[in-house]
């Protein structure tokens, strides 16, 4: 029976009323009295030496308050990186300085080297054109393998090379892996590119800085997924502002997809300039600017080798990846190709020996960092592509080959050879469900029907694992994180029984205001409407790490559960006093406290009132008030998994790929709001279709961004995606968090690209094409067919 409220109910998203009626309050809606406007002047060269920047004319232009350049930031810190990866020799990565405004050199198209602040936006724009910058073009490094060649131009002159790190995982296993691959019955090898993407949230980034000289207090409104992280990084590392003098507010945020996790120079600039000018400073990113200043995603070039015995059992796996860091290290960039990627290379399979090598490379391109899935899509893509290729080479059905190697449900908890322990899962169950909902048995008939219309139909599957709900702080600390990854919640029960929950998680489209309220309502047996979820303001919420890595319900939700448990415990004490009963006899259900075996009861509201009007109250034993805070640090990652199936039709004359059906059978553990979960899968799969078929961020050999607008960067439209068939009935609850939840935010983007590519290659089976790199654009698919026909 579907529930109509609380955990498991598809409660309607309460936030949608304001979003869909245009009443959301986004950062660009923040206008502070006396505010001025900032325009960033960005490099149009990929690499250049700054000889001089003459701002005289610009500063004299109407309305201009000041033009800032690097020299105004002497003594100010650089934009920090939040994760230090140790290389295979035990040395820390090479970490370049990332100045707020370019110093000495510009290192990518879009690198800001000056900012004009003026009374109006138009005045700032006009003045920006009057800046006379003498920048000598230098050769650009764009291709990662070229960047590592001896004598290559260096992006950072003070580093020894363009290599950020050379990471081996698990380095001690390398010899055994090499040996197993040498001696195996069969080795399948695949070289592939995980295409560079631009997140393109609907809302571009915005920052508004304000300074109150009388209180010496700074406020920054920003489009962030994690205001506390921004406060910490910017306050401690860039501007030297203690937390109690710095408030960061991330109000309604129109999508993030990872790209709004990071601390950006523009945020530091607006905060800094507001004090320098004693005027609020606002910056709103244009869409064109977003293309060249938001951190990009993916951009891996990999080789993967899978060794098998005669029966197709996996013996060893070796991967060799080049990961683009761009010109500077964005906040979490180093962790993405390493700890969020290497640790997932076991997938759903028993592979006793695994070795992952990753070379992270600086290039003259926009910094690359986490994008929906972050590292896990790259791992899943390699693995699920090589498994499909192996199936073909071994003459084994791809579903069967996966099943032969699945970790069985009685093998959990399962220690992988890549450092993580999966707590629960049942991969055969999700695969069974997938075959059922995707109607594999009916595929032959559908293929024949497509063929009658001149179309080549293909069926492709992929099975994924992801580690999310990141993560135990002590573990990530060992792995190089420079922050903890707990989450916090304060449950404030108001005097008349309504509740404000202050969470360190941040909602930017995920619907937390609805689903978090469902959890508390369910625990207390009171209506959801009585609960408000407050997030996104460091002055209102306890220190929390924010939303990314599908962590909000698993970590933030758990903190909220713990705080609510404390509330219930205290409320029971108050109730026992009111009912003159022993605390151990007090029961709590459906918002009523009762004394077991009697008809005595007291309602939730009466207990709340007693806590704040403590006339009849055990003041000698407990404090008045009803407010509790918890910080929750998980014991492990969570491990959602699932099977995805895609059906495509390929037009043999044009190479155009149409995704005609898509099915997802996910195991997210327990589900709080099925409708929201389905929406998350829909969105993730749509982005996966984007990556697999359409999206591609392309630089030319001079480092010019060729896909700098929607004229050339192909976003998926509604008609590019089919109706999705999604199922989350396979549930193996997480064993180490109180809700048994695993997280669902990234799964769709992780599992879908390989399913889509596998389907296209299945459709092209008669051509004998091994691989086509994403995006499978008409031009690429057509060219692959042409090459196959001509035997090239």
């Amino acid at each position: 029976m579907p529930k109509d409220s609380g955990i498991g109910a598809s409660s309607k998203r309460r936030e949608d009323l304001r979003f869909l009626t245009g009443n959301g309050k986004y950062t660009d809606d923040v206008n502070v009295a006396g505010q001025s406007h900032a325009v960033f002047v960005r490099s149009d060269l990929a690499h250049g030496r700054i000889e001089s920047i003459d701002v005289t004319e610009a500063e004299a232009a109407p309305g201009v308050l000041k033009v800032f350049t690097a020299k105004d930031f002497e003594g100010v810190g650089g934009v920090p990186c939040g994760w230090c990866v140790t290389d295979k020799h035990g040395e820390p990565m090479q970490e370049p300085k990332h100045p707020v405004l370019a110093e000495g050199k510009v290192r990518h198209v879009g690198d800001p080297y000056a900012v004009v602040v003026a009374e109006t936006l138009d005045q700032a724009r006009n003045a920006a054109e009057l800046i006379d910058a003498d920048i000598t073009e230098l050769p650009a490094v764009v291709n990662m393998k070229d960047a590592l060649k001896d004598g290559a131009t260096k992006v950072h002159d003070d580093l020894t090379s363009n290599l950020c790190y050379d990471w081996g995982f698990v380095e001690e296993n390398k010899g055994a892996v090499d040996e197993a691959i040498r001696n195996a019955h069969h080795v399948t090898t695949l070289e592939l590119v995980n295409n560079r993407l631009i997140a393109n949230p609907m809302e571009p980034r915005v920052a508004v800085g304000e300074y109150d000289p009388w209180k010496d207090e700074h406020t920054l409104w920003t489009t962030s997924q994690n205001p506390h992280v921004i406060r910490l990084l910017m306050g401690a590392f860039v501007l030297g502002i203690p937390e109690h003098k710095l408030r960061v507010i991330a109000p309604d945020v129109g999508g993030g997809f990872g790209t709004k996790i990071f601390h950006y120079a523009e945020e530091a600039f607006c905060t800094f300039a507001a004090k320098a000018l004693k005027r609020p400073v606002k910056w709103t990113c244009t869409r064109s600017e977003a293309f060249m200043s938001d951190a990009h995603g993916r951009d891996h070039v990999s080789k993967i080798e899978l060794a098998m015995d005669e029966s197709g059992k996996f013996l060893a796996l070796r991967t060799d990846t080049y990961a683009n860091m761009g010109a500077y290290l964005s906040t979490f960039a180093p962790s993405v190709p390493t700890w969020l990627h290497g640790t997932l290379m076991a997938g759903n399979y028993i592979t006793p020996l695994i070795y992952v090598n990753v070379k992270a490379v600086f290039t003259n391109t926009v910094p690359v960092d986490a994008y929906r899935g972050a590292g896990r899509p790259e791992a899943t893509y390699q693995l699920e592509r090589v498994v499909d290729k192996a199936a073909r080479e071994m003459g084994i059905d791809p579903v069967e080959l996966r099943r032969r190697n699945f970790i069985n449900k009685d093998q959990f908890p399962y220690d992988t050879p890549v450092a993580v322990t999966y707590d629960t899962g049942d991969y055969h169950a999700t695969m069974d469900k997938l075959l059922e909902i995707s109607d594999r048995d009916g595929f032959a008939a559908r293929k024949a029907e497509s063929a009658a219309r001149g179309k080549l139909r293909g069926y492709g599957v992929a099975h994924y694992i992801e580690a999310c709900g990141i993560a135990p702080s002590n573990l990530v600390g060992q792995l190089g994180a420079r922050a903890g990854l707990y989450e916090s919640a304060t449950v404030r029960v108001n005097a008349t029984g309504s509740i404000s929950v202050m969470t360190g998680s941040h909602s930017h489209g995920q619907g937390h205001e609805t689903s978090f309220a469902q959890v508390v309502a369910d625990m207390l047996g009171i209506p959801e409407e009585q609960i408000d979820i407050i997030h996104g303001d460091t002055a209102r919420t306890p220190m929390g790490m924010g939303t990314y890595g599908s962590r909000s319900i698993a970590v933030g939700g758990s903190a909220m559960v713990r705080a609510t448990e404390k509330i219930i415990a205290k409320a029971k004490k108050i109730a026992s006093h009111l009912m003159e009963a022993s605390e151990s006899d007090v029961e709590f259900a459906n918002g009523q406290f009762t004394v077991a075996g009697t008809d005595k009861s007291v309602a939730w509201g009466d207990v709340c009132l007693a806590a704040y009007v403590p006339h009849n109250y055990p003041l000698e034993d407990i404090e008045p008030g009803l407010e509790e805070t918890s910080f929750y640090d998980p014991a492990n990652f969570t491990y959602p998994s699932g099977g995805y199936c895609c059906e495509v039709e390929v037009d043999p004359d044009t190479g155009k790929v149409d995704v005609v059906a898509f099915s997802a059978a996910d195991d997210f553990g327990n589900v709080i709001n099925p409708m929201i979960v389905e929406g998350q899968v829909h969105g993730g799969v749509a982005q996966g279709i984007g990556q697999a078929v359409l999206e591609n961020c392309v630089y030319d050999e001079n480092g010019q961004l060729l896909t700098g607008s929607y004229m050339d960067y192909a976003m998926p439209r509604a008609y590019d995606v089919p109706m999705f068939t999604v199922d989350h009935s396979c549930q193996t609850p997480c064993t180490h968090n109180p809700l048994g939840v695993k997280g669902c935010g990234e799964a769709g983007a992780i599992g879908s690209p390989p399913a889509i590519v596998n389907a296209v290659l299945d459709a092209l089976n008669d051509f004998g094409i091994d691989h086509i790199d994403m995006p499978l654009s008409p031009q690429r698919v057509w060219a692959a067919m042409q090459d196959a026909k001509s035997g090239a």
Partner: protein
Amino acid sequence: MYAFDFVKAASVEEAVSALASGEAQALGGGQTLIPTLKARLADPGTLISLAHIDSLKFVRAGDGMVEIGGGTTHATVAAETAQTYPGLADLAGRIGDPSVRNRGTIGGSLANNDPSACYPAAALGSGATIVTNSREIAADDFFEGMFATSLEEGEIVTAVKFPIPEKSHYEKMAQPASRFPLVAVFVAKFADGVRVAVTGASNDGVFRWAEAEKALSADFSVAAVQELKHSDDDMIADLHGTAAYRAHLIGVMTRRAVAQMV
């Protein structure tokens, strides 16, 4: 955007004289010009809006012709030529998205002559006549290469006269990002012959494919163009398609258009 003055012309005459006085540019639906202004790629000084000139907004059919006012939106053309010239209505109805179709105008599209625009294919493929405030220009003489036309400075497209073919079809392969044509072909069959106009493909903008016209005029069938290949000389080559791919698509789109018509 740079600051500009804005004139709402009430008549073609007023617009023409406003355009004649110094730095000024006509504004149709703004679907090309406004993005250009936003990117500060143009600084016209004064914009002369044509959007309020009623005499530029009409669709009239008769005598084997459809005549469309230069200020008529794509959406209006799609709706009002559906009966009289369905091939044209279908083309107009697939330009951009609803907001583009409800603002963008046929005059603006033809004057702009984007090498990937749709209307130029219909105009050239139909053998249309472009009417301006001062003269009439045959489509064959109007398009002069990428973003170039025979319009003089300040000349306004007031109407386009389309001879109605017996049959026509527009076959479009969309560029994955912009969804403008990567290559599109307009085939029109008239009593006295067939015209085939290609857009999206050539560095010289819209053009007629003479071999296909000849083959189809002799034998209007898919078979007649089955083996025909367009050369890849001077084809546009970019991220979304090589010259060879575009040349190939010209053949595919032509055959598909014909297949819809036989």
